[in-house]
């Protein structure tokens, strides 16, 4: 996976709560990194998107996945597990968005190897901070030597 600065970053947000999705989108817009945000509202759709199946056949493979844990049909844990077990998908960085630090502890305990964990903030300023963290994380990923 290569990426050069200037090209928009393809981000897949798997989030069933439109309020959260909107806040994330808003915060990303205010950030420094040019991005294309794609939103899916459940785990099944997320997997179809990642595998470029059905309606998502011509969508670009995302550079980064922002994954909510609690989603209908297939929750974030299952999505994370499938991604990390799929040799084609495992290199895509996944940032798990949790509702609380306690929830983060729980998902960590499953040992599913998310690349980062972020706790969803409770106000918009917090969202801006979170987006800042995502950008920081992203930059650290692209600085890594191409494999």
């Amino acid at each position: 996976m290569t990426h050069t600065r200037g090209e928009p970053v393809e981000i897949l947000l798997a989030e069933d709560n439109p309020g959260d999705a909107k806040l994330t989108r808003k915060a990303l817009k205010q950030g420094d990194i040019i991005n294309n945000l794609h939103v899916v509202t459940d785990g099944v759709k997320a997997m179809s998107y990642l595998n470029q199946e059905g309606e998502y056949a011509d969508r670009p493979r995302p550079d980064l996945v922002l994954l909510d844990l609690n989603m209908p049909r297939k929750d974030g844990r299952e999505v994370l597990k499938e991604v990390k077990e799929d040799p084609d998908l495992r290199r895509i960085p996944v940032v798990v968005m949790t509702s609380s630090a306690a929830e983060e502890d729980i998902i960590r305990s499953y040992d599913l190897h998310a690349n980062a964990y972020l706790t969803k903030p409770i106000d918009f300023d917090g969202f801006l901070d979170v987006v800042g963290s995502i950008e920081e994380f992203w930059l650290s990923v692209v600085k890594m030597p191409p494999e």
Partner: protein
Amino acid sequence: MLCVASDEALLSSLVSGLERADPDIRPLEARTLAQAFQVIDAENPGCVVSALSLADVDGVQFLRQIRAKYDDLPFVLVADRGSESVAADAINEGVDGYVPYEDELGDGAFETLVDRIETVVRNYHSYQRFKDATDLLFRLTEYTTDVLWMFTDDWEETVVINEAYEDIWDRRQADVIEDPADFLEGVYPDDRPGVLEKMEVISGGDPADLEYRIRTGDGVAWVSVHAEPVLSDGEVEYVAGFSREITERRESTKQLEALVENLPVIVFTLDADGVCTTSAGAGLEMLGLEPDELEGLSIYEAYAEHDDLVDAVDRALDGEELRVTLEVEGFVFETWYRPVFDEAGNVVEVVGVSHDVTRLKEREDLIERVNEATRELQNARTGAEVGRVVVEIIESVIGCPVTAYWRYDDENDRLEPTAASEPALDIGDNDDVSDLPHIEAGHAEMEVFRTGESRWVRDYADLMNPAHEAADLGRLLLVPLGDHGMVNIGHAEPGEFDDFDRYLVEILGQTATSALDRVERERALESRTAELERSNESLQQFAYVASHDLQEPLRMVSSYVSLLEAEYGDMFDEEATEYMHYAVDGATRMQDMIDALLRYSRIRTEGDDFVEVDLEAVLDETRRSLKLLVDEGEATVRAGDLPRVTADRSQVGQLLQNLVKNAVEHGGPEPTVEVDAVVEGDRVHLTVADDGPGVDDSQHERIFDIFKSNSDGTGIGLAVCERIAYRHDGDIWVESDPGAGATFHVTLPAVDADPDPGLDPQSAAADGGHG
């Protein structure tokens, strides 16, 4: 003193002369023999002084007549010189004194006479005393119950034998006086040779002791004889001794012998070389030995192959008194060896008693085997398993083949067959234990079960309304196991199954009852535990779901209010802005509470392992994390020497932090907080004291309720502390005097004095990183 003379002059001279010579003498007078007899009979004089010739008889004849009538009365003859021949006759006749005189009785003659009379009288008196003593002695022999006897050395003549002979021998004394052989006639014929042999020994000059039987009118008596030769000039002159009746003693000895001979014991003595000198007892027969077969045999040779026996005899001969149990010829004997010492302390003999403890040993072994087997009951997890083990033990160990266990089914009030031996199933041609009949209310067996006491049934057919109506079960033992069930043991013939077996079964029954009680308790505990686990799990699930699901709408509220403020804030007036702050603040606090609730719910399930924790280090961390709070409140946190505890390090950190924080927040102005901890047995007693207004009595319990305290801003701090203390099997409480501050007490496990070497140092180190 009687003076006798026919010559008047001589008589008066005698009388006056004697009176003159000794004033103590009172002379009596007699002139004739007849007169002399009269005076002797009337006056009983101590001595007779007589002239040689009297009117009717001469002196010698007079003496003869006196001797015939009074044979020991002293008699002194006074005669003039020239009658020496008469004097010689008188001496031959036994005169006690003879005093000659010249023509007339002069004074010199009287002195001689008095002197002579005194000697005679003195001799007479000592003879009288001797005679009296001899009489007494002889009378005494008549009183003794022993036969005292003396025969000539050839046993031909009897010298003396007392009347006791008649009592013991049951023969006439006169006959044995007549002929000593009479006593031999009385001796029991079988014992006669032994008696004759001893008689020769005594005649040969040696003493002898002998016990033999004599025939008496009403049977046989035993006598014990001690006899000695009586020597004269080195030659045996007489044989003498005494014979005592010892029938009673012999009888009791005989009874004792009979007792020993019939008891199942072996009584023996061994000499200093380990050779058997006596042996008796019915125990010998068990070993196939005749009563005296062992005698003369060395134990070392006879029992050479029995190392333990040889060892015991060795030790006894070395002076040790000991009791050993060992097996000989298939029997188990317990033997008591007791050494007998001489005055120098050397073992001269060992006496011993062995008794057969084979049966006892078998029973001991059986008890041991039953004990061993009942251990399996401890592992039984179900009542049916207990039943199976009990049936198995009774069948294979105690040896009663027909055995089955019925479990009490309290819902249906009946006993249902749960376990049975093969022979028990065979009785009614049953394939499976469930084919056996149930014991219902009203059945005889049920009545026994209800009493809770084991019971013998002599014949099953005699029972009123038995459960197996058609079965011929014969003798039956029913043993209820508490209220759990009942064991039935059937077909035991009398003798096959004794009281001891019953006793064993009852003991087994008690053990089985305990096992069934335990199984019941465990089942109840297991089900309660499982229930608790389920409820705990759902609580976890609930807490997680609730916190997550609550947070999402909450975040919507707060996020969008803040977004509203960010994007449209310039359109709001000051008051509207303030409202929005309240909304955000409320949402924030609610989120904290939800987080706290989630953490609280996870203390029990998500904790770390217990390790050794240094409270001093934990307190240092607490000081660091509360530095801001402490500094701002100008508080002082003081601590004594704190011991180590065994705990979840992270949770102890949280506990201490919550308590210190609570104390700072509730202390007085510029609060002082005192932290201390002491080891009390296997617990560490931790205290955190503040100097605030204290806690009202009514609040002592409530402050530990969730959301009731306010130590961490969410009202959950003390509730968390309580849950942590409980997880550590400890306790927490508050003591407070209003106005004098509050002291929180917590007990935690102390560090084991002897730390478990299995404690994983890795986990301790890894945990150290948590705080």
